[in-house]
């Protein structure tokens, strides 16, 4: 019963991979194990979708980026260095694909004025100072608009540090630069975002923060 043996073997392999750590799964993938690719897709689709969505602010584009990321992971599996953290490698590929996607749509991003006007109207009716929680999609739309003022690298670094919560060291490894460069890009990104948020969306800024900004 060779077919039954094969099916049993595949099931057992799937179970082994499900129990394995990321490093073991990536090692198996590097050896050409297609089930390891399946396992990686199972584990990383959700975090990569979140990352790509935070960078791009668009669900469909995020899905495309994740698909291409896994394909590139498979195609470039021979280049993985076992000294690297699997997550760093995967995030690096995803970030680079997202940057490619950003560059492809830069001209469209300049046409965000109607979105901005709509958001201003929505926020005007909100009781900001009484603690009403912001909607995720609404904040993402604001971020996407303001992030158009950032360079691709500033944008990715801001997302990795401030939203994904990576350390400067981890961010530097993902982006492929020095920690001091990460700190510089982050400083500039924060300054630009703060300035543009106050200018374009003052209704999203609590009065205390407006006053603090005016004093500084």
């Amino acid at each position, binding site marked *: 019963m060779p077919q039954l043996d094969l099916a049993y073997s595949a099931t057992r392999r799937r179970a082994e991979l499900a129990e394995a750590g990321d490093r073991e799964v990536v090692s198996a993938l590097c050896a050409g194990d297609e089930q390891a690719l399946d396992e990686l897709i199972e584990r990383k*689709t959700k975090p990569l979708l*979140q990352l790509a969505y935070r960078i791009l602010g668009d669900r469909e584009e995020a899905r*495309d980026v994740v698909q*291409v990321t896994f394909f590139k992971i*498979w*195609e470039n599996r021979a280049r993985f260095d076992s000294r690297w953290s699997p997550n760093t490698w995967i995030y690096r590929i995803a970030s680079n694909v997202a940057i490619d996607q950003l560059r492809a749509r830069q001209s469209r991003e300049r046409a965000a004025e109607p979105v901005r006007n709509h958001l201003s109207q929505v926020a005007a009716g909100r009781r900001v100072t009484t603690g009403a929680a912001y909607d*995720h999609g609404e904040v993402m739309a604001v971020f996407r608009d303001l992030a158009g003022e950032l360079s691709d690298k500033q944008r990715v670094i801001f997302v990795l540090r401030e939203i*994904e919560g990576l350390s400067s060291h981890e961010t530097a490894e993902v982006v492929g630069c020095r920690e001091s460069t990460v700190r510089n890009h982050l400083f500039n990104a*924060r300054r630009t975002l703060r300035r543009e948020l106050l200018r374009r969306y003052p209704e*999203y800024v609590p009065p205390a923060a407006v006053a603090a900004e005016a004093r500084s």
Partner: protein
Amino acid sequence: MSSSEELLRPAAADPLALFGVLAGEAPGLATADDVAEVRRAVAAMRRGRRLAGRRSLPRLGSAAAWRQAAAVGVLAAGLLSLAAAGWQRAAESAGEPAAAVPAAVAMPGYAAPGGDEWARRPVFEGLDRPRSASVYELAGEELDVVMVVDETLDV
């Protein structure tokens, strides 16, 4: 302390704390269907890569171009399978031995692999059980080609 209170405290000092909302999961972004869709898309891209060869493929990173290349690759495989099945049926009905699958029939712009690579291609998955499939017929002088395309073919 509630999550909105936690959010508002730093916001009083830093306007950018607004973006702390984004650290939470985007509602409805990742579902079980997404994992299955990613698996299908990656498999299609890999098929496209195998069929098309490295030189003729689009630049990595262009998701739409990749999907299109994968779809073309899958279409090519489907066309070959259908054509081969048609020739085989015709030969069988004439009471003759089954004709061999043609060694190399390439889609325009795509280099055919060497040897009998095309003949070893498996039948395009799913074509034998189309759900809401469309049928296209291309009439040629020596060969009619019928394409059956269902909704899983994302161009």
